[in-house]
Every structure is written in C-alpha cells, then in structure tokens.
C-alpha cells in the first residue's frame, strides 16, 4: 500500500470511528434525558394551594432522598428546613414520589414528575395541591433568593371555559384545578388538570387555560408555577 493510500485509509477509519462515537454520544444523551424525565432531583420553585390559602416555597430534592423546604422566611435567612426523605412509590402502576412535612403534619404526593413536579398534599384537617417549576439551582446550594417567591402574577387574559352541553343536560356540577408554568413574558406552558371532580370538565378547563395569559413579569427564561381553580355550577331559572 502506498503512503497516500495508507493515509486515505487512516482518514476513512478515523471518520468511521468519529461516526460511531457520535452515535454513542447521542445514545448516551438520549438515555440521560430519559432518566431525567422522571427524576425529581433538583431545586424547584413551588406553589401550594389549599383552603387556608396559597403559599410559594422552594423545594430541594437530593439524590440521597434528602428533602428540604424554604418558605420566604427561610429563604430570606438563607436556610433550608429539613423534611422527611422523599421516596418513590407506585400506585396503579403509576410512578410517584412522596415525602412528609412532620412539623405541619402534611404528606406530599407527586403524581406528575417531569419538566414540572406536583400533585396533592394532605394534612390532618385539610388538603390541597402543589405545583413546581424547575429552578436553576443545585440541591446542595443555599436556598435561592426569597424575592423569587414574591413575584406577583397578574392575569392579562382570563378565558372562561364553556360549560359542556352534556353537563347541563345531565345537571352535572363540579370543580377542577389546572396547574401550569408561567414564563417571564406571561405565557402559560404545559397546563395539566390536577384535580377534577368530573371528567366532563377537563377539556373546557384546559381550553380556557390555553386561551389565557399573564402580564410579563420577568426574563424570558424565568418561570413560576401557578394554578387556577374552576367551579362549574348550575343555577335554577328565576
């Protein structure tokens, strides 16, 4: 083989190796993304709602199960409060995570684990829901600044859901709660129905949320969790 031919062969082999490497890297990244899809580890900015009111807080879930919370007061002091460790569980073949807040006697369960995190919470006398957006902090860091929990979200457009005709005919009333992420420019992303007393109200709820937006409140890449509750009622004719 001539020196030129050997050189060409080396280049060909090198390109083939590079191609294989690229495939391997892509496969690794795909696997990593797949793992991340249901990996709750990280710091989250959350909203908790219930009959007693709403509250924002930071939530840190560490890989070793460590769970910490920082409400505005703790975030202001730069300290986390330790909660019971988070653990995975399964209900009706659906993956979920749960952790306890022993101080307030509350159990948090997240059925939604992905880009956003949330579910329901149950206390001794009350309960509600919670919804979180990912925050760009590591669980080992100090809590993010408290001001991130204070940002008000002002609705710019609140679209009303249509009352399903079937529900009127069958005299069905109900309540839904939709949770979603609000971007800095006020757009609503990834809405889900977190609670629904009757499935007939799910679709109009999501349609109404999709047609709504908030006023701009921050940078384009900033996100806040928010929820909206809907009560569907039927009044009698006068």
């Amino acid at each position: 083989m001539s020196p030129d031919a050997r050189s060409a062969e080396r280049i060909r082999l090198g390109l083939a190796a590079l191609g294989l490497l690229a495939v391997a890297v892509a496969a690794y990244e795909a696997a990593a993304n797949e793992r991340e899809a249901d990996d709750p580890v990280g710091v989250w900015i959350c909203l908790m709602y219930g009959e007693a009111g709403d509250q924002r807080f930071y939530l840190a879930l560490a890989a070793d199960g460590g769970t910490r919370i920082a409400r505005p007061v703790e975030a202001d002091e730069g300290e986390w409060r330790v909660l019971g460790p988070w653990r995975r569980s399964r209900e009706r073949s659906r993956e979920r995570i749960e952790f306890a807040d022993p101080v307030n006697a509350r159990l948090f369960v997240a059925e939604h684990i992905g880009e956003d995190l949330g579910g329901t919470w149950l206390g001794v006398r009350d309960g509600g829901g919670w919804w979180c957006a990912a925050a760009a902090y590591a669980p080992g860091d100090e809590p993010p600044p408290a001001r991130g929990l204070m940002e008000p979200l002002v609705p710019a457009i609140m679209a009303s859901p249509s009352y399903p005709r079937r529900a009127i005919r069958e005299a069905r009333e109900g309540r839904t709660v939709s949770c979603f992420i609000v971007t800095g420019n006020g757009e609503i992303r990834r809405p889900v129905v977190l609670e629904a007393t009757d499935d007939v109200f799910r679709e109009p709820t999501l349609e109404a949320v999709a047609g709504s937006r908030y006023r701009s409140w921050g940078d384009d890449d900033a996100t806040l969790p928010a929820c909206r509750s809907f009560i569907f009622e039927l009044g009698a004719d006068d």
Partner: protein
Amino acid sequence: MSRFLLGCLAAAFTAAAGWAQPDSRSVLGERTPLLAAGAAAIQAGRYEDGIRLTSQGLETETVPPRLRAAALANMCAAHAAKGEPDAAIALCDESVAIDPTNWRAYSNRAYAYWLKGMYADATADVDTAARIAPRAPQVKEIRGLINEKTLRPRVTMENRQ
C-alpha cells in the same frame, strides 16, 4: 330534535307491543289491526296516518283499558312530534287517567309541555315518569331538554399563586 322524537316514538311502540306480551302480540294484530297499523305508521314517521288509524281503531275495535291507554299515549306522541302540543296533552291526560302507571304518557306529555315552554309542568311529568321507569333513556332525554332551558350555567375562576 326530530331524531330524538323518532327515538321516543319508536320506543313508545316497541313498548306498546311489549306491554301486550306474551299473549297479546297476536291479539294486537288480529283483534286490533287498526291499532297495530296505526302504531306501525307512527313508527315510520307517518303521523297523520298513524293518528287516523289509531283513532279508528279506538272507535271500532274492542280494546282493553291498558291497551287503550297505550294507544292514546301513542297518539299523544304523534301529535307532539307534529308540533301540536295542545292536542298531545289532551290525549296524554286521557291516557294517564285510564292507566296512571303508563310512564310513556307522562314522558310524552312532558315533551308536549316542553314544546309549550311550560317547564315546571314538564319537570313534574318527567319526575313521575322517572319514578316509574328510572332507567328509560327517553325520560333522561326529555329531562336533558328541560335542563338546557331551565338551568343557568356559571363558572367561577380563582387564581392560585
């Protein structure tokens, strides 16, 4: 609406035949051929023919009281289907006076009241029909029509943040 009515009427005649079972189905044809022909005509959507034949059958044929009540309820349904609620109500009144357990007469009269916008009366009749036949789809249909006219939907929204 017409589809609903056809469904309602078809069910009424199926029931009239069913009511006559087990030994009266043939009697309906043999002893009361006009009533049978009237029922078939109404079922086919030929309301005028159905009313005429049923009316003749009631005048000329020997008809036991419950079958008479069913035939009157059928004529009531046919008039309601034609958009003649007053005639329908009079026939249904007569039907329930003979057989107060005939839920179709209440159901048909409820529809006739609905046509007239008399929703309270329609509701009273549909309630009675539902007590006698709680699973009847026609009763649910008519209740749905009443609900659409009488219930005022309202949605309250609250932002959580």
